[in-house]
């Protein structure tokens, strides 16, 4: 919260979605992050994606850990419940939220400190459990709230604001997500809304573990020359393998990507995910190929972006566990309590 309250009035010509709502109905409180912070662009992209998909704005569970990124669930989807939990532990809390009500859409927002250092274990395990969620990392390679320490995703040799080089190898969450079984893996850039919004839409429509690593420069501590997570560096070095668009019945303008090849994937709800391959021989359904591609790009000093892998027939943790289709938090005594007669028989078994 901040001392500024957002005005309720808005432009009369804002587009209205199928629920009769505008983008403003998907917003949150005013951000308290630094002016120009990449994270605010990510929040705006979430707002746009949810509004364009006409998703009910109260049917989300927004969960985060601790850090600048983890503040952002306050800045989108005000009508949904949010939970700013413990540093590095968003994955377990959102796992619980998802277990309790499988019908809610789960958005977990985390940062590179939150997910690649203190929470690396929880990151790994929520991915391998295949929790049905959007796991989004605002990745700026630095600890912003504690003023500029290197995080574990910071590239070796990249320098701090004071010019000190990072001595250690980076942890690449995209590679880990691919290896650990995420069924939707993408990377994008907070400064590229045209790429990011469709990715978020596709991830929200994906049934299963959808992971998006968003490089989101820290204007205060990691946006200088020498940093590999600055706006300038990422703009110059990002390389989109596949551009994704989500089509909900109506045709989309596709002229921008005419030179590549195109592939359509039907999502579980009937919407169509259109994939435009910038690299014509890239196969977004090949997990091992995606891993190789990401590593190869990294070796060349480039950042692979776009939808890197998708499994359209993925399963999620409730399918794996065989949980009832009704949300567990709606079950009452009749479904849960076996009653006294059953207990008498149970007692007999202990005699």
């Amino acid at each position: 919260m901040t001392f500024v309250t957002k005005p309720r009035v808005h432009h009369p010509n804002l587009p209205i979605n199928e629920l009769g709502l505008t983008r403003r109905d998907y917003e949150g409180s005013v951000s308290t992050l630094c002016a120009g912070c990449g994270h605010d662009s990510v929040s705006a992209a979430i707002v746009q994606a949810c509004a364009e998909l006409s998703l009910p704005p109260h049917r989300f569970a927004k969960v985060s850990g601790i850090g600048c990124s983890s503040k952002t669930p306050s800045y989108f989807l005000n009508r949904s419940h949010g939970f700013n939990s413990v540093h590095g532990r968003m994955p377990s809390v959102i796992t619980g939220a998802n277990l309790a009500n499988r019908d809610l859409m789960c958005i977990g927002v985390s940062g590179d400190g939150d997910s690649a250092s203190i929470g690396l274990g929880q990151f790994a395990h929520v991915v391998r459990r295949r929790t049905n969620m959007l796991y989004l990392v605002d990745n700026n390679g630095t600890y912003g709230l504690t003023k500029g320490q290197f995080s574990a995703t910071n590239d070796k040799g990249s320098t701090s604001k004071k010019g000190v080089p990072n001595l250690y190898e980076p942890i690449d969450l995209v590679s880990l997500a691919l290896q650990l079984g995420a069924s939707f893996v993408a990377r994008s850039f907070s400064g590229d809304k045209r790429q990011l919004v469709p990715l978020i839409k596709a991830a929200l429509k994906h049934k299963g573990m959808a992971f998006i690593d968003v490089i989101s420069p820290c204007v205060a501590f990691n946006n200088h020359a020498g940093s590999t997570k600055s706006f300038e560096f990422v703009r110059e070095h990002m390389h989109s393998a596949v551009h994704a668009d989500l089509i909900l019945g109506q045709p989309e303008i596709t002229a921008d990507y005419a030179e590549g090849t195109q592939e359509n994937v039907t999502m579980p709800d009937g919407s169509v995910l259109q994939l435009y391959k910038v690299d014509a021989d890239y196969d977004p359904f090949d997990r091992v190929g995606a891993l190789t591609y990401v590593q190869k790009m990294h070796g060349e000093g480039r950042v692979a972006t776009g939808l890197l892998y998708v499994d359209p027939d993925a399963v999620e943790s409730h399918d794996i566990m065989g949980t009832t289709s009704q949300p567990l938090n709606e079950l009452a005594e009749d479904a849960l309590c076996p009653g006294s007669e059953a207990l008498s028989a149970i007692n007999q078994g202990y005699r």
Partner: protein
Amino acid sequence: MNSKINDFVIRFANVNGSGSASANGMFAKALFRMGIPVATRNIFPSNIQGLPTWFEVRVSEKGYLGRREGVDIMVAMNAETFAEDIDSIVPGGYLLYDNSKPLATELVRRDIHEIGMPIATMLLPEFVDPKQRGLFKNITYLGALAGLLNIEFDVITGMVATQYKGKDALIEPNIRALELGRNYALEYLAAPLPLQVKRSDAVGDRIMMEGNDAAGLGGVYGGATVCAWYPITPSTSVAESFENHCKKLRVDPQTGEKNYAFMQAEDELAAIGIVIGSAWNGARSFTATSGPGISLMSEFLGLAYFAEIPAVVWDIQRSGPSTGMPTRTQQGDLISAAYASHGDTKHPLLFPASAKECFDFAADALDLADRLQTPVLVLSDLELGMNENLSEPLEWDDARRYDRGKVLNAQQLDEVETFGRYLDVDGDGVGYRTLPGTHPDKGAFFTRGTSRDEYAAYTESPEAYQRNMERLQLKWQTARQLVPIADITGRGGSVGVLYYGTTALPIPEALDKLAVNGIHLDTCRVRGFPFGDEVETFVAQHDLIFVVEQNRDGQMRTLLINELQTNPAKLIPILYFAGLSISADFIDEQISAYYEEHKLARLTGVKS
């Protein structure tokens, strides 16, 4: 030795992983089925195969369930511990051993009865497979004991038939081994011994159940839908029991769909995180752990306290600190559980003392956590959790409805003018909460571990912070009225004894022993924390109170001093913390010694 019926301690010394547990368990169960009260104790190593393990059965017509010092009959089947096992037999007691090899002369004791039986030699011609010979060694001594102690043989053979139902090929060799042992005892040994058993009706309708098993079943009855956990001895069987009972009771027979989620987490942090996440979203959930897990969960427990989210944690205590003795019992987590986490935090605790209470408290804790919107910890221990002991049968009132606490649905939200998550509308310190996804535009709020105002908005206002902390203190007062009340007995004397959990097991016997010497104590069995008025009154009304517990530092005593501002001088610690369970002998000795030393008045000449 004079003849003694239904009153002895028998201990089996085995090598773990040798299949002895099943034979030893059948021994105890046979006596139980003859209507004789038994208490079993498994004393086992942190190991899967090859180390010494003991199984002790206290047989007591009077129904004394606590551990008793000394062993009357030692079944010594482990060469490694032979010397110490023989040493632990009381004078006049019995040693049953395999004399296929003769007993070393230095081990011979003149004051006990040696009963040698060439088990290995006897089995050699009977069973070709060496693995079978190993396993049937246990069954053979069970057969011998049936002869020596007069156990009704058809009770044992009936159990074999039930146990191997469906694996019929195993029934015949088991019965053969039993008969081999029994016939040898009847023919060559002085069977029956003066120590023996006799059918009784002292068991009544009681059951024999492990506390952890009852806790898991209580979770099913109490409506838990999420169990997230991480394996740790001695708590693992709570989670396993929940799943086992769910498989029978919570799976739709038509669709095979499960009305529960059972999730083995990657560690204790994730386990409590999952519990908190699901409880935040309206599912009743719990985890089970032991001391090291409580340490790991502490940050999350502080979050749940401050953010006001229900959670139930079973702590099956074991000997600490650190890894301590992971397979030995203790009551050492009271302080770390009561005040888990940084800042001003405190949590309600429940102290079950029987399998039935484990079952009851499993459901009560879920109600209490929902009602108070806070973590509730149930402090059991290895002694209660992992041993099969006598318990009153489990009961469930079909009219009972789950208390989901103050949760507003969509219709109620429409009716309230303003919703403030942390507004104290009812003056009990507990606000109204809403679940995610309930209402299109009312009731959504942001949950956080940072300071907030009554409307869940972030604030660093000193006044708002203090108001919130004071409301949580008021909620603590509400909790005092809601935790299970203490079990108090007495005749208005000036000296009392206060205890909790499994320390209750030897208390009746200890009181009887003390009474013989003119020491009569009022009793208070604490069942919940924060302490209710009844505990405060008990402490206030007695000049002297022995606080009996199983830890080194007198942790319950510390809680009493801290929470009730009691004069420490009147609380006398009686502490046992060596890893076995506390015995009536120990309590009797310690309290008697205190009376002796302080020349306290006794009621002599009164025999009740």
